[in-house]
């Protein structure tokens, strides 16, 4: 039979998963809004950010209560600390989604730029990293988390490529400068979201193995 503490821990994991699902959906929808020029969808993403913020606060409170009342040890302690960090990162992913959605609101109201495969690839990579890191959290799979760390370099390179492509484009198309800059900002947000996914991967490795791999997890 499950103890009360185990129930609480399970509940904590469920709340984190709920946050993860909401953040992932927010990012997906923001990207869909960006590529399909769907302004109502972008508005929806901006409006629903509050839900994730509230969940982050709830996770924080839950973790503090568990730490104070149960005085957990070893892996339980790491799990609670890790969840606090992951909640912060997931909330930031949602913030990046809102940022992308705001770019989509701006760009959707203006003539389209030519399709940008590097940006689409960057979006796919960021989404893939987020989805992989969530799977890694569910399954407590360290190697999958490490794979996410590896993918971060790819995201950085794609971000640079988007920047270069659009700089080239802006040189010739002066009227498109503002739109291009907005697109560069969107790419930057995606790169940040990929970084948050990497941070989550580091937290997972911390929970499972008890080692701190911050800033060098790709090794």
């Amino acid at each position, binding site marked *: 039979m499950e103890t009360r503490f185990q129930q609480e821990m*399970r509940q904590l994991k*469920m709340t984190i*998963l*709920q946050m*993860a*699902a*909401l953040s*992932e959906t927010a990012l*997906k929808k923001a990207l*869909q809004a960006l*590529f*399909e020029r769907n302004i109502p969808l972008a508005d929806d993403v901006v409006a629903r950010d509050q839900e994730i913020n509230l969940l982050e606060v709830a996770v924080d409170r839950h973790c503090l209560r568990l730490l104070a009342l149960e005085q957990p040890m070893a892996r339980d302690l790491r799990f609670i600390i890790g969840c606090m960090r992951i909640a912060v990162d997931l909330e930031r992913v949602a913030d990046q989604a809102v940022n992308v959605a705001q770019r989509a609101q701006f760009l959707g109201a203006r003539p*389209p730029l*030519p*399709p*940008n*495969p590097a940006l*689409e690839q960057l979006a796919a990579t960021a989404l893939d990293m987020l*989805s992989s890191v*969530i*799977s890694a959290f*569910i*399954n407590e*799979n360290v190697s999958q988390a490490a794979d996410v760390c590896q993918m971060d370099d790819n995201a950085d390179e794609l971000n640079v490529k988007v920047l270069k*492509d659009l700089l080239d*484009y802006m040189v010739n198309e002066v009227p498109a400068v503002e739109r291009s800059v907005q697109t560069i900002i969107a790419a930057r947000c995606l790169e940040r979201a990929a970084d948050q996914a990497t941070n989550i991967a580091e937290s997972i490795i911390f929970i499972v193995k008890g080692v701190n791999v911050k800033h060098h997890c790709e090794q």
Partner: protein
Amino acid sequence: MFKLSSLRVRLIGILWGFLVLCVVLPCWRMYGDVHEKIVIEAKARAVDDLNLVHWLLKQHGAFEGLPQLQSWAVGIAESQGFRITYLDDSGKVIFDSLFAPDEIPQLGEFGTRPEILQARRGEVGVIVRLSTLTQREHIFVAKQVEGAGDLPAGILRLAVPFWQTNRALDALSRGLNLSVLLAFLGMIPAVLLWRRELGKSMKKFVEATERVSAQDEVHALRFPDDDELQPLAEALNHMARQIGERFRIMREEKEQLEAVFEGMQEGVMVLDSRGRIRRTNRSLSAIATRGPITIGRQPMEVLMNYEIQEACERLLGARDEESSKRVNLQVELERERTYDVNIVKLQEAGKEPVLIIVFHNISELKRLEKVRQDFVANVSHELRTPLTSVKGYTETLLADPQFDKEPAASFLRTILRNTNHMVMIVDDLLKLARLEARDQRMESSPVNALEALGVAWKSCEAMAEAKRVRLENRMPPEGVYVQADMDRLVQVFRNLLENAVKYSPEGEAITISCEEGDSLCTFSVQDNGMGIPAHHQQRIFERFYRIERHRDRESGSTGLGLAICRHIILNFGGQLWLQSPNPGVLRGSTFFFSLPKAAPPSGIENRAHEGADNGSSLEG
């Protein structure tokens, strides 16, 4: 060890009980009776002997002194084996057949002996007791006799030995006791032996039944020939056969259910009362792609969908009302993968509730529904736009009959242009309807694709010249023969070329090339336009689908060209697809289509050459 309830102990107890009841009690009773009879008999005989001796004493007459009396008494006593004693009234011994007269005074007083006391009361005293002299059992009889001659009146006493009889009786009793004891003891090994034999048979039955429960297949059981246990063996065999049959039916039913469960297209998940996954089927692993579906997890962990998790928790937490037993949700688990999710709560009386979640994939239905909605919206929109102009201009003309000739003619030209556009749309729709209606392949013959390209280019030449767009033909000069229909192939080329010209920047080239495979020939039409975003690429072949609604209308196309092309190519057994942007650049798009290859018909090489000349003249 030996339990009171064990069969052998109970059996021994019962048998001993029977033994006591049937043998020991009657024996004891009989022994008692015999003993009593013998004693009575002996006493009666002793009394008879006493009477006889008394009679002899009376008959004898007077004795000459005591010694004669003594010798008479000894003579009788020795011959009869008993002892004769004569006492006077005071209890003093006169003579005794066992003792010489000189020893008599030492015998002492006999008056206190019980038989003497009885005789003194006038009765015949009879008593069985131990002799004080010999310490052996005797029957003592005594009676009063009147005196005769020298002999004073007194008491005549006989002591008849009884111990021999008693000894025989004792021997009998001992024999009886011994045989009872032997019977008691002998019963134990007999019972144990019997119990062991019974145990062996029982063990065979037990083994047989264990085999029945251990094996899936149940065969007839074989038992030792044993008349008593035969009915049990038969009943057991019957039962085994019945169980085997039921096993088989159950296994078959289980296998069938398993096959249905696993073969279902719908994903199924069964949750226990705590909301943990207890079972899933194979289809579910295609639905829940978040990693391995582990038994014991919660739906959230494999589906990452909070709606479903929340619905499950609500159902499990709810009390048993009819309204809280079923939930229907539509969830999009991944992009363009929509599921109709049915959650049902099952609760049998007295058991924990179980949730069954069924996932039905409705993505295709959703997509078709969207295509249909878009089509209706688009076709009305496409027809309404020219109709609005026709209506407006006609109303203007009607409002003022005295209209100047020149503007009136211009209005009428606009009306005609819009009407022609509508006719074009309707024609294209009919064409498409005909193409869609034809399921089987169209009649086809070998056609030179280069020739078709030449004809198609002629019809877009004016448009291309206006935009200074060149055609770069990279097909082999002798042309390529494919299995198709000339007119329709021309139409495919024309539609693709028109699109390419329309979206090409001014002064750029459109490239046509051809790649021959084993059985198919793949043609490509490449432009350097702005390209087609990825999410439009899937839907661009739908009827009236436009990337930028406002841009296309001026170009005068009907929005059906690509849909028609795709149907024509499919009907000839080929494929139509696109790639955008072009490899290595950020722009442009290439449309590919494949058609089955055909051998050039004999005797038309010249025409092919003509076509080739025609093709090369297209360049520039």
